[in-house]
Every structure is written in C-alpha cells, then in structure tokens.
C-alpha cells in the first residue's frame, strides 16, 4: 500500500504507482479499488488505471475535488495508504469486435486506458477520442497513443485539437466508418451526450459510471443506479453498463447530492490551513 511513485499529470490530477501485489494479481480492466488515506478519512473509490502483475503494482489517478481527494493528492512517495480494498466491480468484457471507439472526457482517460489497452491487445482497431477543458488538462496522452491506432483530441477552449466537445469528434468518426462498439468514460453529462450520439448512429455503447459509494461490496446500496428500469448496484454489477439503458438524469441528481456538505468540509480544511 506504499506509494512507490507519484506524478502530477495536470493541475489537481495526480497519478500514483502503488505497491499492492494481491490486488495487481487479480486486477482486470474495469476493476476499481476503495482506499482510505487516514483514520477519519472517507472511503474513496478510484479506478485501477493500470496494473503490473510482475511488479505487484497498480496505478491510480486521483483528481483533488473534495477534502479527502485533495489530501490524498498531498501524499508523497514513500507514504502509505491506510487501507486499500480491491479489486472491486465486474471486469469489463474484452472481445475482438473490429473497430472500437474509446471516448474519454477529462479524468475519464484514467479508467478508459486499461480498457483501450486490452481492446487493442485483443486485436481491435482502437480509435480514441479524448476531450478536456483545455490543453494542460489532457492527461495520459502518450499512454493512450501507445494503445490506440489513432487518437483525436478536442478542447473546450480550442487550445488543442478540435475546438468544442468530444461528442463532435464522435459524430464525425461515426459518419466516417463502421464501428462495432463505443466505450465512454467521463463526467455524467458528457457520457449522457455521448450515448445520445451513439443511439443516433445505432452503435452499442458501454459507459463506466462513478456513482457515490461507501463499502464498494454491495452492502449499502448507496451506489444504486437505474439501468433498463431496474435498480443496479454500481459497485458490484458495474461500474460498466450498457449506456443506452442508463438513467443519466437520476445519476446526475444523485451525484450532486452531497455537494453542499463536501463544500463545508473543504471550507473547513481551508480555514484550518489558513490558521496554521
């Protein structure tokens, strides 16, 4: 559980290489872990962005948004997480299908990478479409390039690649060639928009959902999402689901839910910092 290496990928986004041999041994694309960084910290779910069975390591990417994730990103090489539970979730099915488009928004690249890598290894043509707010927020570009046959970029402010949303790239790609499947990971509104495009073109789409979680083992039901009109537990049944069936509106409302209190915690930690 020791941090072997640490790298800042973009402002507020940190990549950790963690010693976790048991987890590395069982990890598959689509799996995630839950960690606690200190005694009274939250249980934070993070996708396994990469794993190395020989070295016994896993790679995690954490964006500092709330109090706990900001504190995690302050941790240094040589520090250890207090608890690390995993691998959790159902692995993402990897098949040889033909051409697969991997769409990532923002931090979504991290969870998308192991899937792109496995799909590429399985012999698919992988076309990756990566969107970010601005150029400096683009992460893991080299890694994605290495496992993609082609990568296209978009930024909201036009500082790199296509000026606009990543859905525009998807629309274009789908009108250019025949695609067997789309995999999309990113913020909920981005995934919802991507699913809309996929539906227009009648291409199957898999999304990876990041519901709020506590235990990550199917015990609390806090991560429930509605898929095809049925309640599913994201931590056990997912996190990957058939995008066409996901109720994104509900997911969005549920995610906003703890926002206010998170702000309070952050506010307080900033006050404490100021007081030091």
């Amino acid at each position, binding site marked *: 559980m020791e941090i072997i290496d640490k790298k800042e990928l973009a402002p507020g986004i940190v990549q950790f290489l963690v010693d976790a041999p048991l987890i590395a041994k069982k990890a598959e694309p689509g799996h995630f872990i839950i960690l606690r960084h200190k005694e009274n910290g939250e249980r934070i779910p993070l996708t396994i962005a990469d794993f190395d069975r020989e070295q016994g390591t896993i790679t995690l990417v954490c964006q500092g948004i709330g109090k706990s994730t900001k504190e995690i990103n302050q941790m240094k090489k040589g520090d250890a997480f207090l608890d690390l*539970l995993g691998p959790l979730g159902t692995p993402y099915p990897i098949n040889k299908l033909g051409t697969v488009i991997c769409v990532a928004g923002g931090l979504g690249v991290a969870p998308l990478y192991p899937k792109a890598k496995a799909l590429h290894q399985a012999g698919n043509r992988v076309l990756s479409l990566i969107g970010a707010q601005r150029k400096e927020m683009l992460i893991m570009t080299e890694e994605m390039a290495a496992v993609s046959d082609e990568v296209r970029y978009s930024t909201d402010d036009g500082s790199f690649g296509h000026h606009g949303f990543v859905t525009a790239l998807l629309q274009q790609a789908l009108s250019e060639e025949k695609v067997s499947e789309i995999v999309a990971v990113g913020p909920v509104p981005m995934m919802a928009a991507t699913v809309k495009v996929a539906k227009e073109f009648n291409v199957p789409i898999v999304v990876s959902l990041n519901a709020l979680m506590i235990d990550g*083992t199917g*015990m609390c039901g806090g991560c429930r999402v509605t898929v095809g009109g049925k309640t599913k537990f994201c931590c056990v049944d997912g996190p990957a689901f058939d995008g066409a069936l996901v109720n994104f509106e509900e997911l969005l409302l549920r995610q906003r839910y703890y926002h206010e209190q998170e702000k309070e915690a952050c506010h307080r930690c900033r006050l404490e910092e100021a007081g030091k």
Partner: protein
Amino acid sequence: MQARGGGKMRQQMPKQDPEIRWRNFDEVALGFTVEQAQAEADRCLKCKKPMCVQGCPVEIEIPNFIALLAAGQPEAALAKIKEKNSLPAICGRVCPQENQCEKLCVLGKKGEPIAIGALERYCADWGRKEETEAKSTPQETAAKGKVAVVGSGPAGLTAAADLSLMGYKVTLFESLHAPGGVLRYGIPEFRLPKAIVDYEVGNLVKMGVEIKKSCLIGQTLTIDDLFSQDYQAVFIGTGAGLPHFLGIPGENLNSVYSANEFLTRVNLMKAYLFPEYDTPIRIGKRVAVIGAGNVAMDSARTALRLGAEKVIIVYRRSREEMPARLEEIENAEEEGVVFHLLTNPLQLLGDESGNVKTMVCQQMSLGEPDASGRRRPVPILDSEVSFPVDTVVVAIGQGPNPILLKGTAGLNLNKWGYIEVDPETLMTSIPGVFAGGDIVTGAATVIAAMGAGKKAARAIGNYLASKK
C-alpha cells in the same frame, strides 16, 4: 417456593433520561449497580431443572452463573458464562432475552422473570473494568495448522475464538476496514458502544488471531487461494449484508437510504462527527423509517440524534408483529419516535432537485394468517395518506451478501440464495468449507450467529482431526 424470588420486584435497568438522550450518542442503558445486581441475583431460584437454559441458544449455565454472582464472585460468574459465550458484554446488550431465556424463566409465569441479560452484562462489564481477561495468552502458533475465517461478525468472531482456543492458527479476513460486522457498522453506539467491540476484538488478537482487514474473499483472494496458502479449513460468516428495497416508484430519489447505508455512514464512518470525520450524512427535519425490526428502531433513533425534528416509523402490520426487541421499541417511543402501523408505502415523490418530498401510503387491515403464521396485511380501499418527508430510510430486511457466493464455484445455495450446509456439521458442498450465521439462516440474531460459529468450530476440529 415463590417466597424468595417471586416476592421481590425485578430490578429495572437505569437509563439515560429520554429528554437528554434523544440528542446524544452515549449509551442509553447504564447497567445495574452492584446493589441491583446483588438483589436481582438473589431473586433467582437457582432451579434444579432450569427452564431459562433451554431458551438460551448457547446453553449458558444461567442458574450457576447467577449463584456465583449472588455469592459475591463476579469473576467466577463471568468465567462460567464464558464457558459457553465468548462475547457476553455484547450479548448482554443486544440479545432478545424476552424471546429466549427470560421468556422461559419460571418466575415469569406469575410475576416477572429474572433480568438475565442485565446480569450477564453486569458480569461482563465487571470483567472489562477489572481487566480479568488480559491473562489469555497467545496459543502455540501453527500447532494444529491454519484455519481461515471469512467475515468478522459475531459468527466469525466466535468461530475464530473457539478455533484459536483449540490450538489452530486462525486468520480472520474482513472486507471492511474495521472488524465486527453488524456490531461495527449496524448497531449504533448508543446501544452497543464501539469500545466494547474493540475490546472483544482486542482479546482475539491477544489470543493470537490474525486479522486481515480490507480483504474481500471472492475478489482479493478466492477460497481456492486460501487452500493453496495452506489453510486447511475455511469458515464463512459473511452475513446478510445486501439491502432490500421496496421496489416502489421514487425509491432512488435523494435522501432515500437503505438502513445499511444510513447506519454505516454514522457508525462505521462516524458521520455524526462530521466534519471532524470526513464522511457526511444529510439528515432532514422529517424522517420516515420503513420497517419495524431492530434495524428500523436503530435507524429512527439515530435520525433523532442527528437532529431530525420528527421521526416516524411506518409499518404495514400491527404492533404484535413488530420484530424488534421490546426494549428497543419502548426506547424509541420514549424518545419521541411516532409509529404509523398498518401503513404501507406506495410511492415517494420528489422535488425538482430529485430530493424526496412526500411519502404516499395506504392504510392496511389484518386479514387471514399467511405462510409465516402472521396475519396478512390487506389494503383498505381509498385510504391513501401522505406524509411530508425529507429523508426516508428503508429498513425492510437484507439478503445474502453476493460477492463470495458468485466467486466460489461448487458452493451450493438454497432457493433463497443462502449457503446450504449440513445441519449437523455446518459443512458446505465444498469439503473443508463451513458456513454459519446470517449467510446460512438469513438475517437473524447475534446469538444465533455466535451459536453457529461455535458449532462450526467444533465441527472443523473434528473434521481436521479425522483427516490426520
């Protein structure tokens, strides 16, 4: 014969005043004083054929321990209890004695039964204060080989303790970051202080049991992995941790929690100490808890302590059918929880941000008895009522925790999805793998889980001895 016991009144457990306690998380029941324990122990008839023992799932020699206590020997009394029950401080607090030992106590026929649970608790608390148990020494390691116990609820804790006493090197695997199972994440501080769970777990560690937290069997390691790591037998006590929902419209609105989530946030993650602890909980002014078991009472009383103004319990049957312990129902009422019985939720309505706003219910009446022998609730036509709510907790029961079951080939389940075992040995369909507690019976009681852990430990001992 009634002269001694029957004549005197049963001692009443001192409690925190409801006016004060409904807003704090400190323990509600305060325990007998020395004088009370003496008086109550004196009241016991020390029956030759004690009925109470028949009601005790682990057959504690009740009259014998009470006699020792009456004779002023609490240490010996505790030792007597511990011959049969390794977690008396916990059982004395949470067992439904009114349905078990105290229900059968002969004094209950004409008057009031002995307060057996309170006396058990008294002995255990005395021992904890005097640190009598610190003596237990680590067992010779690997003397008889290694056994893995999966899940650290009462079933797992008991199996681990007994196997360790029998001379096995035991490793306890727990998926959460803290051991105890429901004792840790479910039952609240005001009913079972976590310091007691810590103390009991600490005793296990002193005995030489190794605890591996944050290890999910079925994912991090499989049962096969355990055998290839030289564990010779495995006990599964993974509990009934899968929350059931009602399946009514609006159930995924915000502020609708499963009791598991609600209680886990508060107990395991200590959200009641937010922001000192980082995990938040949002509690509204008007809270409705659906269900009437212990889990529902715990949720309702926790909601009050988090600051809710009004807490209601909604239950579709009547008072007689409420499964919670009597004491907890009374406690909830004293603290101001309002019960709406024969009331069945139909749907939840939300506001534009997706937060729950209204609970629509239907009134019920009791019809013919159903398969469970309880009278079936039947809807009364045109009897809809609505309650304004801003938090809803669903506490209608749990199912088997699925992860280990899914990840273990060859493990037979019954039609409800629980693990099938040989009733004598608790061995599953996989040789050397045993199971007990809620994962076999469905949600039951702490003591039943402990009884299963005990039985399995004995069977594992026999099984391993016969293999030699």
